[in-house]
């Protein structure tokens, strides 16, 4: 198993207010290819902050972050943008689909990177493949306003998958969905891990967490692995 992500002693301090607040306090975490990890914790415990550090939205104040064996804890924005598009797929609680674009165009959006777009043909096949993976290829031409929440979230997952990411980062992807639809979404995410993709899922739902390979608790910025009690 190749190690995709190795965090060690990651610390994030929020400044700006009267006194600095430590949001992440020496977090360590490794994720291998094909592994799925759940991160659970109370609201405000720092789960989203951790994901934004892993997804290179933000940089840690201390600690080491290795992606594919490469140290990237302090990376200039230009290279971070490249890595975001080459290594990560993101799914959020809200779907963030652009209302003025069709499902296919929304998915194609993730194919824009520093070099512009892929040629139209390749773009089409990859978008349709991604939509097919989450089971909604028939909705390619529909607009988000005409879709159910579950369908919209699956478009968002297709958008995350279209670049063949090495790691999927999902921040409460089922938070806005009913149990049944949520299960479908988790199915789609787990399907990606079978093709070797790593998955980090932030969730409040015990059942969804239990389907992951490992569960980590985040309490006041400190991450601990829950010992399996199967």
């Amino acid at each position, binding site marked *: 198993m190749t190690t995709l992500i190795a965090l060690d002693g990651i610390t994030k301090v929020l400044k700006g207010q009267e006194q600095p607040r430590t949001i992440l306090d020496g977090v360590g975490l490794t994720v291998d290819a094909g592994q799925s990890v759940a991160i659970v914790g109370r609201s405000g415990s720092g789960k989203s902050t951790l994901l934004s550090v892993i997804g290179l939205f*933000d940089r840690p104040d201390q600690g080491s972050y290795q992606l594919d064996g490469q140290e990237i804890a302090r990376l200039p924005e230009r290279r971070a*943008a490249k890595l975001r598009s080459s290594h990560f797929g*993101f799914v959020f609680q809200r779907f963030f689909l*652009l209302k003025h*674009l069709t499902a296919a165009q929304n998915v194609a959006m993730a194919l*824009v*990177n520093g070099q512009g777009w892929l040629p139209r043909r390749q773009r089409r096949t990859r978008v349709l493949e991604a939509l097919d993976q989450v089971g909604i290829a028939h909705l390619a031409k529909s607009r988000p306003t005409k879709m159910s929440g579950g369908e919209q979230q699956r478009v968002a997952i297709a958008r995350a998958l279209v670049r063949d990411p090495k790691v999927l980062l999902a921040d409460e992807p089922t938070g806005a969905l009913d149990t049944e639809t949520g299960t479908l979404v988790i199915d789609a995410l787990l399907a990606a891990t079978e093709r070797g993709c790593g998955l980090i899922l932030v969730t409040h739902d015990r059942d969804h967490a239990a389907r992951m390979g490992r569960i980590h608790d985040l309490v006041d910025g400190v991450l601990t692995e829950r010992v399996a009690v199967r």
Partner: protein
Amino acid sequence: MRRLSGRFRSSLIIGLQGIRARKLRTLLSMISLFLGVLAVVVVQAGASIAERALLADLEITQGYDGTRVMDMPMEQASTDMLAATVHGRSDAVAMMGVSGIVGEPGVLPVNPGAAPLDQDWGPAMVCNDVGCEPAPGVKGQAVEVRLTALSGDVRKFRPFRTVTGQWLDFSKVPAMSPKLVLNRAAADAFNQYRVPAEMRVGGAAANVTPQFVGVVDDGDMQPRAYVRLDELTTWLPTSRMADPMTGGEMRLLMSPGSPVEPVVVSKLKALGNEPYVYTVESRKDQEKQLTLMRLVFFSMAGLVLLIGVAGILNVGLATVGERVEEFALRRAVGTPRSLLAGIVLAETLLTGLLTAAAAIGAAAAGLKVVTMLVGNSQPILSDVQFPWEAGIAGIIAGLVAGVLGGFIPALRAAGIPIATVMRA
């Protein structure tokens, strides 16, 4: 190359998607900019039309830029020399003016000295060896004109506009009785005074019945009648033309570099005259006035354009505010900041260009309508083409407005933190 074009293309395509998604917004920002670009286009068009009109008037009265002009005293010898030298040439045309009175026999003209009808240049005078005194007799139904004899087609140098009838035809053999073309001032005078058609020229063999074939606009206030020199001389000897009582002006118009100039100069010198030659430089003479006019108009147009830019900026910023999530998301999926800024800039640039095209179209159509409605009564406006300078000025104005109005929103968009998507 492919990398660059791919990037450029994707900002354009995504920018276009953005415009299509927000048609009303785009329309709103277009309205203010439209007025600004329209102002620039109209000012530029007005300036070049005014410039052309101004120059056209100068060309009629002075001659085209670059024309060489030589004035010389009217004397028998120089008149004969000039007539012989320029005979049959088209690169040099001599104009010789004599006095002609058209009307009732034996009366003084209403405008002695061929004065413009609304001016009084004093009474007619007769001169002899002792001095001059007012001519005897009473004013009657007669009009005095400057009878201007032409050795060739002067319109090569001064583009007279034909008002009615025809211009003199220099290609035919000279007629026995001279054909005359009046200028506007003369035509007006004959409209005002119904005179018997007989023409007296001092020293002519006999009075003739003039044959008027047309009216032209020559830009002159003085009543004039143009005639072919070779037709006039069948009836009036050159010796009489040089008579100080009747003649007075002799002018030679030449193309730049015409071989006639050195010949005439040396011949005149041999006759004991010092010729005075100059070049017509209408544009240069008007430059200062035109520059000032342009400056005033452009500062006004610039002001209006600035308001347009403020409009596009305002709408642009509001749009970025609304699209924080979209931009954060785009950055999350790996769109670099520069491309994001490019997308916003592409949107305002496209809006600016679209607006410029609309404004140019509106201005061109407006000009067409105006020329159609008033072109007949305002000769300056008839036959006016939309000047291309105005089109270019409009496109530049649209581009500048797009860049200025899109720059700050683009910077804003590029600076949106990605983590926004996690906290929304």
